[in-house]
């Protein structure tokens, strides 16, 4: 009886180890996050908000633009801190960031975040 219990515990431990090593195997040959981010870097000195803010909060900016753009029509204008006025539109973003086709995708793929923007908007990856 006692032996069976030890076997049980051993099996459980072995399973855990196997699981951990499977994680390990999955991470090999993986580029660190900073590299993924750098691959996408463009000149972001003149974005609508500071780069650091956009890095973490771009989805909120996009959500605000998405919710107001249609209803405010031509009045849906975003004014940046330095006084530039930009139409709230995804194409405003893509006017700069579209130059790097992988700008959105490298990080989003790494973080496994799939936004539904590209259901309608034509993504830079789809353009020839």
């Amino acid at each position, binding site marked *: 009886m006692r032996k069976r219990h030890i076997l049980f515990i051993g099996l459980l431990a072995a399973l855990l180890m196997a699981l951990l090593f499977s994680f390990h195997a999955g991470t090999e040959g993986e580029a660190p996050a900073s590299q993924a981010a750098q691959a996408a870097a463009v000149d972001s000195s003149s974005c609508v908000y500071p780069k650091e803010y956009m890095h973490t909060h771009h989805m909120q900016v996009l959500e605000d633009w998405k919710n107001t753009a249609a209803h405010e029509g031509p*009045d849906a204008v975003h004014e940046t801190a330095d006084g530039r006025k930009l139409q709230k539109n995804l194409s405003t973003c893509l006017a700069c960031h579209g130059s790097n086709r992988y700008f959105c995708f490298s990080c989003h793929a790494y973080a496994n975040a799939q936004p539904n923007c590209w259901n309608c908007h*034509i993504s830079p990856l789809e353009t020839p």
Partner: protein
Amino acid sequence: MMKNDRREFIRKAGMGLLAGMGAASGLLTGGGFERTTSAAWAAVPGEEGLRWGMLFDTRRCPEGCTLCIESCHHTHNVPDIASLEGKIEWMHKENGRELLGSLCASTAAVPALCNHCAEPSCARACPTGSIFRRTDGIVAIDYHRCVGCRSCMQSCPYGEVSFNWSDPRAALKNPTVEYPTRQRGVVEKCNFCSDRLVRGKKPSCVEACPEGAISFGNLNDPSSEIRRLLESSETLQRKPELGTRPSVFYII
């Protein structure tokens, strides 16, 4: 009877309706019922500022020419679906008599699009406010909010709202990158090129017309070209008797 497209019928139905009403009120012979004067838009008190309007001079519209439609559909990524059941159109050409009623002498095809009504019945039916009238008079759709209940489509008396029954991207061969497509499950219609207006451009149909048959401008500005044309010529609207006050006019 030949099998008709429903929307085509809605367009034709104006004639039947008018005939019925005309018979009842004796207005048909009088003729003034459908003819619009400048009073149709200017007499509404308290309405100032911008109200975009469009005028087709169908006398200059060549038979068989579809350049305006092609340009519109290409600019806005309108999918090219062959079946009548699933067809999506922002602009199309129809028999003028069927479109505008018996006052239209010619049966030649004239262009038609969303009328951007001042009293849009589609906006009154939409349960989420996704289709609404902007301050510049354009009836716009918020594709991010539309739930796809098709109430607007049902209540548009002109049949100018289309629904994406299937994935529109599949039927799109050469998309315009600058303008988004729509996704399956939302409605769509002409937006009076609000995307181009904001960049200071004229609507793509106006630009595409080689004959200059389409005028576009502010209906509330007495000095605009469209007002000048409206005041100097006799124009027609589609189904004005419904009280929707369309912003699209026709010179026959």
